[in-house]
């Protein structure tokens, strides 16, 4: 199912109401939101990130085996930036990698992420930072946190003259890089690679893969030279945000305390009375 693009308005710009939760005393409500979701959606914006390839991919013997290497959160690298999109991309992708296992998100699975990563690295091994046209798909259903973070990797970024990671239109979906297509593409390339590495009779397909490589290389080169100015400024002028671990640890602490309070409420104890709650709480909670 096609997902609507996540349209984000950057500064400067007037704030837009995000949700139907408005002030009862005014039509618009005291909202400072700067996000504009797709129309009719009263749900939270979600961020999905699909990784872009790191340059260093060693096609070692692991590829010839049945068990592929574990997925690594690849990030969109910038050609001139000293570090990748570490802050939010890392948060999102690591959360995706971590949470997908135990939260069981259906749509954006690590398999998709891994395929994106493998496809990108195998097909463009010599490329510098692939600056993808990142589309943030607004996943408006209740899915896990990690599952909502996917950066879609637009190989045919030549169609996106602006190349901005915030700009995405519905018309570009046809040319964009869909995970379903990626899966097939990735699988085919994997098979080709394995065949070639084993010396199989797949040499005829090498020319096709070379053509595909060159086209993808050219499209990515074009995309590298069309960065969104605000995006670059954002990347280069600010300090990176802390990693997901800090966020998760803090949320965990807050939720643990909240759970204790819920227990106290359930047991009709005053909030803040730690002695009784400690005595009655299960050991795993302490």
């Amino acid at each position, binding site marked *: 199912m096609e997902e609507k693009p996540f349209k984000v308005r950057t500064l400067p710009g007037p704030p837009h109401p995000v949700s139907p*939760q408005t002030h009862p005393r005014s039509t618009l409500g005291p909202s400072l939101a700067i996000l504009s979701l797709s129309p009719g959606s009263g749900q939270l914006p979600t961020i999905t990130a699909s990784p872009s390839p790191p340059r260093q991919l060693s096609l070692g013997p692991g590829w010839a085996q049945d068990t592929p290497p574990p997925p690594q959160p690849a990030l969109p690298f910038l050609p001139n930036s000293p570090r990748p999109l570490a802050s939010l991309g890392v948060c999102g992708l690591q959360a995706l990698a971590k949470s997908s296992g135990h939260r069981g998100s259906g749509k954006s699975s690590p398999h998709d992420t891994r395929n994106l990563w493998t496809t990108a690295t195998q097909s463009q091994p010599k490329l510098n930072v692939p600056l993808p046209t990142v589309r943030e798909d607004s996943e408006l259903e209740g899915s896990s946190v990690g599952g909502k973070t996917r950066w879609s990797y637009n190989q045919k970024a030549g169609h996106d003259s602006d190349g901005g990671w915030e700009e995405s239109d519905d018309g570009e979906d046809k040319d964009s890089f869909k995970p379903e297509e990626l899966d097939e593409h990735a699988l085919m390339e994997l098979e080709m690679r394995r065949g070639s590495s084993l010396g199989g009779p797949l040499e005829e397909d090498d020319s096709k893969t070379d053509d595909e490589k060159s086209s993808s290389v050219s499209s990515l080169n074009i995309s590298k030279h069309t960065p969104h100015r605000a995006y670059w400024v954002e990347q280069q002028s600010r300090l990176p945000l802390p990693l997901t671990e800090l966020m998760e640890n803090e949320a965990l602490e807050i939720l643990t305390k909240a759970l204790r309070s819920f227990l106290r409420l359930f047991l009709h104890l005053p909030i803040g009375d730690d002695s009784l709650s400690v005595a009655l709480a299960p050991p795993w909670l302490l």
Partner: protein
Amino acid sequence: MKLKQGSFLWYLYLDKLYCLLSVRNVKALVEYFHLLDVHRKKTLNDVLFYHFLHHVTDLKRNQITIVFNMLDWNAVGEIGFDQFYMLVCILLAQENHLEEQFIFRHSRPIFELLDLDGELKIGPSNFHMYNFLFKIKKQQLRDLYHDFDITGDCRLNYKEFKLFTIFSMNKYQESQKAVKEEKAVPEKKVSQVNVSQRQSLLGINHFESISNYNC
């Protein structure tokens, strides 16, 4: 009110001109909100909200309750992401000493937050109640009602409040300029001293050279 150092919110920042979070910060905040939203209702109830604020700030219980009631403008007993985002902006504005700018830039939503009764007018009690958030001092309040209560009903409507925000913003900018000028003055003095020292040295050297020449 102070943010706990090293907490997640402490690492966020507001744009100094518009007093809003950047897109990257908002994304991080969305992720954070999702983590706190254990019930998967895209809201935080009062218990979660209390523990969140208690963990990241030094606010007291009654202050947290006041903030919750202020933000729960739908009176549903839960806080959505809109309200959460606004709260974070308010906290960051206070942390970074951008209260005047924040009130100036977002006078409408702040007015509606202060207007608890929905009468489109706010009195001194409203300001007193949220003094720990917006840091409007008593003297400022007196000046506010003395200078801007045009209607004379001891309450401010939105236009009067907007005038107040413009005035306080001008005052803030003037104070900032004065501070910068004060900083620039000792630098000028130091540079002037250096110049005079150089000139004096050059004068001595010139005299010596002349005397040597004469000799």
